[in-house]
């Protein structure tokens, strides 16, 4: 696949998961720039810095739901305070090891969350995700 995404941000407290997800995304070739954050605080720092120059914002964020202290939902709540032009650039995919029906329902509350994927990530899942959202023209997504 061609390089179509400027950068991807991975948010997961588990190092092994971040390593695995990095390898998987690298193998799809959709981007050369993969960042990993081990906590919500770290992710917020990255995003706060990036929003100064809106083009450096990661176009795809893979967010683990279950993390200690501040979980994925907490990050989503924090993001609500971001400027609308920043939010419109974000495409967040929630990642979870268990398909909790309540969690799946909950993502509807956040327009910048575009999908829910169950772990483990795979090249196939990434590619499906990309084609699904590329074909949806007119959405508030900037994945080309």
């Amino acid at each position, binding site marked *: 696949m061609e390089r179509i995404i400027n950068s991807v941000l991975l948010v997961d407290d*588990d190092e*092994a*998961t971040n390593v*695995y997800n990095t*390898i998987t995304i690298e193998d799809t070739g959709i981007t050369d720039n993969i960042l990993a954050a081990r906590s919500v605080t770290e992710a917020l720092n990255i995003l706060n810095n990036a929003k100064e120059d809106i083009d450096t914002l990661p176009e795809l964020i893979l967010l683990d739901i*279950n993390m200690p202290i501040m979980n994925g939902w907490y990050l989503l709540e924090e993001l609500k305070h971001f400027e609308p032009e920043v939010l419109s650039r974000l495409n967040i995919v929630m990642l*979870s*090891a*268990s398909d*909790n*029906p309540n969690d799946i329902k909950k993502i509807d509350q956040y327009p910048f969350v575009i999908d829910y994927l169950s*772990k*483990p*990530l795979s090249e196939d899942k990434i590619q499906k995700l990309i084609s699904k959202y590329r074909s949806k023209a007119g959405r508030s997504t900037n994945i080309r």
Partner: protein
Amino acid sequence: MTNTYNTHTEVKQYLMSIIGNSPFGIITIDFSGHITIINEATVDLLNLKSKLNNYLNKPVLEVVKGIKEFDERINECITEGRKPFDVVEIAHKRKFFTIKGRVVLNGMLITIEDLTIANKAKNKLLVRTKQLEASNKELEQFAYISSHDLQEPLMTVISFSNLIMEKHSDGLDENVLKYLEYISKAADRMSLQIKSLLEYSRIGLSNNKILVDCNLLMKEVQQSLSSIIRKNKAELVIGKLPRIKVYKEEFISLVQNLISNGIKFQKNGYPPEIKIDALEKNGHWEFSIQDNGIGIAKEHKNKIFTIFQRLHSREDYEGTGIGLAQCKKIVELHKGEIWVESESDMGSTFYFTIKK
């Protein structure tokens, strides 16, 4: 009222002995609220100090004291005319009473019932129920959280062993690859096990009962089982089924589980034949799912409904050992029973009942 006593004296003696020995407190009063009859039980229940006779002709409110609602009812009866009343479950001097008033000839009958023991039991039950509800909630929460927390490290095991096998297998010892495959397969199995455990813990939590036509529902079941039906050349014979109120999702998984078990536990080389039927019985429907499979030995008949109980090696018959435990929980959710009739090698018939 009829009686076999002839003289006035006989009748009077008889009635007084009934009143005197009644476990209920019994008082009668006249129009002005003065006591005309009082029995031993009243004195006991209210813990009165004087002799029985001393209370005769006294105002009832001087004897049964300190119960506001009773005071009000008696005063109403004296001033506004007699009418029946129930003063229910009042706390009085560390006891619980229900006091009832009824209109009788020349006055009123007042009965006092001691509910202290029943009340204690009721309170105990209430506390227990609350505790049970709380611990059930906790358990559900626990199942969820633990399943998630177990699932996550497992995903890492699966991901990395697959990664090595797929992308880094060049030059690896054949044994290493074999061992990796064992790791990966075991982790897959554990993941499946955790998932079904979670499903098991969630039975009956989400929905309400709805009316379904089991004949239509069976079409859905056949649809979702179509690949294993085709693969095993199984034949399903479905009788006329009723319309009943069920927890739909759970009911589907119950029927699906039993049918796929029937297909799965098959003698080598025999095409499975599954008969599904329902009989209307007194107050419930009795469903039966009959197969021509390997059957179940007598000594295992009860074991099979226990969670994680397996009777066969994974090599012979796959599975997590949760299916029938799940079935049992679903049937119990519908206040029914599940059992099996079978003999080794002779096929099995699973029965379950669903309350009408």
